[in-house]
């Protein structure tokens, strides 16, 4: 058992760090949840892609470097330690791409992945509906067979980044007569500027138009944009859900970097006699380290040929609660400045805590609520009997 990186891994880390040092601006980009910020972040994606840092774990043919899962973790650690901009492409890269790698056709991969990697096409996730959040079996939007493709009708909501994105992916009911609610769903990709499609931005808790409602009225989608077999969308989507809850959405680097910033903030600002706050800072630092080490253990298990299944639910609950604890503690440390928005004139110079806090509050809600995750942990990992929710 060891935690030592190989010479090649250390060299990769040094190369990533050097590139990030040379390219990350010292001034923060505007929030990616605004039109101006979205455009600025798209430019940043282009810069990452130009030097092949946008999707390091992908095969080279799609613009990646074909590096190992561990090297990806290393890149992410460096990325967040450098305080580099948030990834506006993350829905595509973290959720759609793994699905295409597993279930897509070679034609789909060749067509969809390179523009996703370059930021030319930014993807939104369109799973939730007014009646279906964590319970995707209740999806009602339909896909009706037509010549050469499908016609989509219905409503999607809370669609992350759809206010400014180019395309979306989601599940639609293609066989309303299916005997169970899960079969009969089809996984489709569609353009957000298609005829018949209306995008209505929705303000988030902090007022930023971070997501949107989509109204689909007979929107045509060609057959080539169906992922996997029609009617098999549930099974296809579950592989994406695993990615979303597991490591690929929330790499440890994000939390270790935030914990480092929190520990610095504590040293600079805190009253050392406030042991209650000290304990919370320590717990956040330990939590970030625990999450990092848990990731290393998972990567080691995957490298040894084991697979990670329901355990992604452990990850999901842990990182989402850690994220909130990190940000709440930072806001408490900032005292009266904690309530200031990041763009307020008096906001702390080391900013970002306010938006990070708002973002963290969504963690226990999306990607399957933490209540659903705890059910999965209890039933699949502990073997407890199923019951009424």
């Amino acid at each position, binding site marked *: *058992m060891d935690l030592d990186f190989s010479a090649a891994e250390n060299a990769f880390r040094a190369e990533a760090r050097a590139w990030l040092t040379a390219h990350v601006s010292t001034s923060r980009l505007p929030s990616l949840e605004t039109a101006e910020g979205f455009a600025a972040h798209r430019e940043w994606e282009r810069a990452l892609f130009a030097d092949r840092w946008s999707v390091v774990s992908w095969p080279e043919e799609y613009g990646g470097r074909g590096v190992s899962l561990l090297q990806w973790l290393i890149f992410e650690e460096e990325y967040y330690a450098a305080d580099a901009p948030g990834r506006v492409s993350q829905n595509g890269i973290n959720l759609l791409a793994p699905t295409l790698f597993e279930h897509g056709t070679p034609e789909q991969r060749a067509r969809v992945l390179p523009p996703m990697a370059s930021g030319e096409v930014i993807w939104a996730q369109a799973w939730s509906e007014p009646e279906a959040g964590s319970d995707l079996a209740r999806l009602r939007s339909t896909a009706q067979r037509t010549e050469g493709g499908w016609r989509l009708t219905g409503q999607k909501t809370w669609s992350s980044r759809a206010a400014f994105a180019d395309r979306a992916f989601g599940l639609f009911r293609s066989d309303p007569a299916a005997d169970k609610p899960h079969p009969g769903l089809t996984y489709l990709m569609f353009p957000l500027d298609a005829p018949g499609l209306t995008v209505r931005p929705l303000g988030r808790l902090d007022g930023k138009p971070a997501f949107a409602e989509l109204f689909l009225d007979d929107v045509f989608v060609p057959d080539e944009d169906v992922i996997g077999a029609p009617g098999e969308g549930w099974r296809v989507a579950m592989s994406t859900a695993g990615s979303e809850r597991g490591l690929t959405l929330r790499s440890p680097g994000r939390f270790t970097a935030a914990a480092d910033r929190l520990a610095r903030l504590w040293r600079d600002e805190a009253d050392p006699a406030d042991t209650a706050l000290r*304990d919370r800072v320590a717990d956040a630092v330990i939590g970030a380290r625990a999450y990092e*080490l848990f990731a290393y253990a998972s990567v080691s298990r995957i490298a040894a040929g084991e697979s990670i299944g329901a355990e992604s639910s*452990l990850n999901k609950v842990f990182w989402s609660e850690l994220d909130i604890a990190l940000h709440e503690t930072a806001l408490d440390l900032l005292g009266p400045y904690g309530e200031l928005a990041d763009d307020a004139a008096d906001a702390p110079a080391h900013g970002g805590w306010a938006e990070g806090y708002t973002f963290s509050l969504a963690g226990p809600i999306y990607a399957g609520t933490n209540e659903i995750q705890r*059910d999965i942990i209890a039933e699949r990992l*502990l*073997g*407890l009997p199923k019951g009424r929710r």
Partner: protein
Amino acid sequence: MRFLLDTEQRAFAKTLDGMLGSSDTPSTIRSWAAGDPGPGRTLWSRLAEAGVFGLAVPERHEGLGLLPVELGVAFTELGRHAVPGPLVETVAAAALLDRLGDRAPAETWLPRIAAGAALVSLCAPDAGSPYALDADTADAVFVVEDDTVWLAAGRGPLQRSSDPARRLFRPTGATVLVEGPTVRAATSYATDVAALTTAAQALGLGRALLDHTVAYAAQRTQFGVAIGSFQAVKHRLADVLLALEFAQPLVHSAALALASDAPSARRECAAAKVTAGEAAYAASRTALQVHGALGYTEELELSLWIRKARALRDAWGTPAACRSLVLAP
């Protein structure tokens, strides 16, 4: 990097688990608590034969080398079966004696510790407690303070612990064994070993508590269904698993840090200690709640595990002390 136990380490854990599982530890614990160390000493010898104490003794003193990762593996199993006795104190004393400038105490005690012939207690008031665990049974009680190691000559009356299997005494009449600047560094290392092995013990204890409670929740029915099908029960148990699963890698990485004498070792042992200690304590609270009045009953064997969890949480580094160490510059 391969942050996983190897086949041999896993087999070692399985062997210990099997051996302890067939040893009727509950009656051993009850005897120990009642002041009869006979069955406990027999078990101690079997643990020594399996190599447990040799893991804390270097080869030049007839041990297997100080192997913190394997110690972590072994102590997780000792915790799982709630084995009584000054287990942590013995391996921490071995680490201390090995690192003192004076070789005589090491030559006297380490081969006996490795062989299981000596149970040793260690008391470090600066590390939090004025009491020596199991001083009535131990073959030697060492006391460390500032730059002096003392050998206790006697002990005060038994101070009953909330865990009846932990017998606490204040050492008395000490004579100086070793004095000098090497003592502080050796003590610091020994208390890190104590924090690590206590953390591992807590982790094993917590896993046993969870296993028992899950089995009970699946079998006990109320309102016509298994109580384990209630979301309120499920979520509490899921939280226990979460806490234990994320404490585990901290224990492993603390062991690796100790093995390589890394500067981060102190901080990592403290992080492992507070996290595993709190996880085991939460497991005990959940075990008690889910077992209901049954869990509140002393006759139930589970009580031996429940009562140990609180004591381990505070031994060799209270949560507050550990959190403070984690943030120390």
